[in-house]
């Protein structure tokens, strides 16, 4: 009987410590390894040479790799939390910003902005956010109007909006005369190489989103019991849902502006975490943040280290891991 409840504080500390160490380790590895040095043992070189500045390697690490690793961490954390939030709001463990077409909608908005030539901040970010909100609205409308199994109609609506967004993107790109075409295409497939100082305001907007979601972790648990029960447990369902919906959509669209379409992070990480630490979002939110960050830094490492020359867009790696998992989950949920 005494073992019935484990105080949340202890578990939280343990989980944060473990995942924090994991994140520190992959970030270090990410900073040390790249196309100019593929040996993982370079970590020790890196640590040894931090003292003497000025060398070319130092420049590569501080100006190119470190910003890139940080961007990967923020993007991974955001997409993973975005997955958690949408899974709670739609009460569907397969919901995820990319699958629901929200990332695609943001990309349509962002590309429209880029082609018109408005400045990156706030212009392109605003158009990306509008694009994702519009897509989300259409998906929710389609899913609520559809008859039969709501869980499936929601995913179908998302997949169709994603396809439609893809077509719109191709249309926009094919009519454009932009010299940036190659650059935009690469960004679309998920590109973490655009970490520049000019993008810093976006980080400043993303971080408060994390705080909001962390504060709402307990209401997120209660939302999962359904509208009626959540109301009777003192949660203002409508207000909390709207706040979470806007917060998640905002941070996901910002990450799309920063790193393009990186899919399935919000599916893979919450799924693994739920299997290992359960359904309590007071643990899942911080764990999803650290786990998502570690995961995308790791995927980016693979994207840079795998090809014999050059690098892969990280979105290809995450899709290669995530899409099969999605299919397995869908198959299992149908049984």
């Amino acid at each position, binding site marked *: *009987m005494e073992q*019935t*409840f484990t*105080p*949340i*504080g202890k578990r939280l500390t343990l989980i944060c410590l473990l995942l924090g160490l994991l994140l520190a380790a992959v970030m270090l590895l990410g900073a040390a390894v790249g196309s100019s040095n593929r040996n993982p043992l370079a970590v020790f070189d890196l640590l040894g040479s931090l003292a003497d500045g000025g060398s070319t390697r130092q420049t590569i690490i501080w100006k190119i790799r470190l910003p890139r690793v940080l961007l990967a961490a923020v993007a991974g954390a955001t997409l993973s939390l975005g997955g958690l939030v949408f899974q709670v709001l739609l*009460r*569907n*463990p397969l919901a995820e910003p990319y699958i629901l077409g929200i990332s695609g909608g943001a990309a349509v908005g962002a590309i429209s902005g880029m082609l018109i030539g408005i400045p990156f901040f706030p212009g392109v970010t605003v158009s990306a956010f509008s694009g994702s909100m519009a897509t989300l609205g259409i998906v929710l409308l389609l899913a609520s109007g559809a008859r039969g199994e709501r869980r499936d109609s929601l995913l179908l609506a998302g997949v169709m909006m994603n396809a439609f967004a893809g077509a719109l993107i191709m249309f926009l790109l094919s009519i454009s005369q932009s010299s940036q075409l190659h650059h935009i295409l690469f960004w679309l497939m998920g590109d973490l190489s655009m970490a520049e100082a000019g993008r810093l305001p976006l980080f400043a907007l993303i971080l408060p989103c994390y705080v909001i979601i962390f*504060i*709402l972790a*307990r*209401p997120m*648990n*209660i939302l*999962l*019991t*359904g509208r*009626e*029960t959540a*109301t*009777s*447990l*003192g*949660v*203002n369902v409508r207000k909390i849902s709207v706040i979470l919906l806007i917060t998640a959509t905002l941070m996901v669209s910002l990450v799309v502006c920063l790193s393009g379409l990186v899919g399935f992070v919000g599916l893979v990480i919450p799924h693994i975490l*739920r299997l290992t630490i*359960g*359904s*309590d979002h007071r643990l899942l939110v911080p764990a999803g943040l650290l786990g998502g960050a570690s995961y995308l830094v790791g995927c980016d490492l693979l994207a840079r280290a795998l090809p014999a020359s050059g690098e892969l867009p990280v979105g290809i790696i995450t899709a290669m891991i995530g899409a099969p998992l999605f299919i397995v989950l869908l198959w299992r949920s149908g049984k």
Partner: protein
Amino acid sequence: MKAVTADNISLSYGSKEVLHQLSLMIDKEEFFIIIGPNGAGKSSLLKGLAGTEKINSGTISLFGLDQKDYSRRELARLTALVPQGIESHFPFTVADTVLMGRSPHLGLLGAEQEEDYHIARQAMQATDTAHLAGRTLDRLSGGERQRVIIARAICQQPAILFLDEPTASLDLAHQIRIMDLLENLRLERKITVCMVSHDLNLASMYAGRLLLLKNGRVVRTGAPQEVLDEKLLEESYECPLLVDENPLSGTLRVLPVPAKFLRGK
């Protein structure tokens, strides 16, 4: 002061009105049971009183104060609801679920203290669910799940407990155990109990007063002896019934009469 007062309340879903200018009063520490045929509006009435469904007109007061003047959280500390069906898409454990009952008592970032664990443990012992603590809801039988949800409601420490057919999916032993538990809570913790039930015999044995509802209107309110009238029930349920005295408790007993025995009636 009454625990619950409803004055001329109406409730509709779209254009379909399910409660028509209904009024009722529930005393403090009363065992109040709402009965009536399917589609009478029993669940809607219960949800309206508990505040999870918005009424279109009229007023509901809890302990003399308009329901609208309570915040969501205040309402959740004052009342608890055990709904009919529950969702479990995500695998929360029994312990997690029961502990959720503490959430209206905690701040947004507040963690549960030893006291909260103690209250949750007591609630689980009272409902015979302590041995299930580590299991997830989707691995429970219907009856076990029902008891867990009642444990969560008890864990809320409400002054008024609303229950929507809490014994519907339980076997005889657990039906009586749950009803005895509610009766004990009422007597020991001075909780007001308001429930919807299809089981007229349980209702007759436990209720202080019954409310017979049909087509969103009150047919009769009063002590079981007054409401469980053979003629009145036959008209309301549109089915032949036999009402006699329960030899054990002296309360009234209601039996539906199958067609093949109709001649004797």
